[in-house]
């Protein structure tokens, strides 16, 4: 199954539509664009790791690229996670609070 078919299948899963319900060109091309944008933006952003260490940058880019290729399509998953469920929002808020505090407290003290 190629990426296009995978995306169409995922859109149907998200919409809860049966096989008879058509998936439009617009929704598929939007999902593809979002997918490509997400992957390319993250990969370009990872190149900034060169400022820390060039080897780390190369390893990070290769690992993330491989992970993305294996896990594609990513956008349907991202969309599912970024829904309007209060439980999901609360979860990410608590995770973000923990990350921010950890980074500022221990990051600044130990780096």
């Amino acid at each position, binding site marked *: 199954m190629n990426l296009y078919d995978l995306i169409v299948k995922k859109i149907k899963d998200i919409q809860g539509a049966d096989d008879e319900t058509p998936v439009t060109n*617009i*929704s598929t091309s*939007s*999902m593809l*664009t*979002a997918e490509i*944008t*997400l992957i*390319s*933006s*993250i990969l*370009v*952003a990872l*190149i*900034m790791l060169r*400022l820390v260490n060039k080897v780390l940058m190369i390893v990070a880019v290769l690992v993330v690229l491989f992970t993305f290729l294996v896990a594609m399509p990513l*956008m349907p998953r*991202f*969309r599912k996670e*970024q*829904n*309007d469920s*209060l439980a999901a*929002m*609360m979860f*990410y*808020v*608590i*995770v*973000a*609070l923990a990350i*921010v*505090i950890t*980074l*500022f*407290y221990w*990051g*600044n*003290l130990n*780096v």
Partner: protein
Amino acid sequence: MNPLIPLMVIVPIICALFLNLLHKKDRTIKIIAIILALILPALPILANYGLHYFGGYAPLIENPSLGTDLPSLITGTALNTFHPAITYSFQSAQKLFVFILGLVGLLAVFTSLFETRRPSGVYGYMMFMGIAAITAVLLTDDIFNLYVFFEIAALATVGIVLVSNIKGNYETALKYMILGGIAAPMLLLGVALLLGVTGNVNITDIIYSLKNGLVNPQSPVLLMACGLIVFGWLYGSGLPPFHTIKSAVYSKALPSGAALIQAFSVFTFIALGVIILRIFSYLPFSQWVILGVSLLAMILGITMAILQTDLRRMIGFLAVGELGYIGIGLGLGTVFGITAGLFQAVNEVVITAFLFIGFGTVLYQTGISDTRKLGGMMVRNPKVALLVLLAGFAMAGVPPLNAFQSKLMLIQASINAGLPELGVIMILLSIVTFMTFMKAFHAVFLRPKPADLEIKNENIPKATIIALLVFLVVCIVFGLFPQVVTSYLQPLATNLGGVV
């Protein structure tokens, strides 16, 4: 002392109270709201630069006669320079920000009054209270005072959503309040820790204490305070992980309300971002956090926007994504980068309001915001379609409109700072923004009209068209003469760039 400085906050509060008291007296509400809304952008133009001390308590050093009978423990130490009163600072950047907030407020109030059959005093109250709160957030040099108005702005935002009468608005408002119930106390805790370590809530005095060794800048409590204030900043501006709820809030407000709420978010972003840079500039880590969060907001906001089928939700996500551009400018930390970021903030406030009110005309006429059920609106309103198209061009950064100048400056700033990758990402995401907008524009205006689409209101109010034209003029003027805007922002950027 300049009496016009506190009036910028007092006038909208008084107007809000009057509108609430006069609820149901339609004509009176309309007249009061229009007159006082006209004063909002006029006040910052008329006011002179300077400081305002509430209660008149200037620092002792500015009034030596008061200190003659005081012990040297006070007059001979830093206490002599500290600010005992809540201090409002009005400089060139604040002048521009308060003017733009007042202009967006005026046009949002103007639109709302003419798009509803019966103007609501309660809705007007919420709008004016929000404007007053954000003006105070922009002006205050007191971090506790900022927190108080930050909370008032959050409550006004919830109020604007509650009175919108859009399906699901109560649920979204409740969720926003619950998440605010976690994030806002964290911001307050950060402020309390700062007070605990420095003994001060005045930002200038806190910076003095840090720079002159009165407190240990590497104190773990200060690091914790910085983390908590950053978390409050994420909530106030709608950065990840709050981008989902913020875009939902925009989509559950009336177009005039959404235009105003996004202005609140952008100015909260700027006010708290500037404070983080001013106080914690000695921690290079804080800049990297600003850059990282901004990058995440851009990527998540814009990729989520293109997947949306609801017009308001799509603009809401785009607005979150555009916040990232501002953050990149601030996070770069150079004078040029900060100027570009602040310029982008001004542009974003204008353009997003332009888009919300422009697409709001479709909602006004059809009562529908789902792009799958819309179409053929170009035939009905070619002039409005052209205005909305230009708003979309402005957001994507098409020359000669304003965001082209600010985005170009941001890309140049990132290259100058040795981070061309950021420039590449900004270009890529601008293209996707353009595509997202064109997708919505095609669905609403260019596609044939669906047979079952009903037009509920034939004529768009002239007030709405005037508001759109004013936004367009601002976009063109700022695009053709960017130096008009950047000259106001340069002093603040130089100040911040000097300390970062």
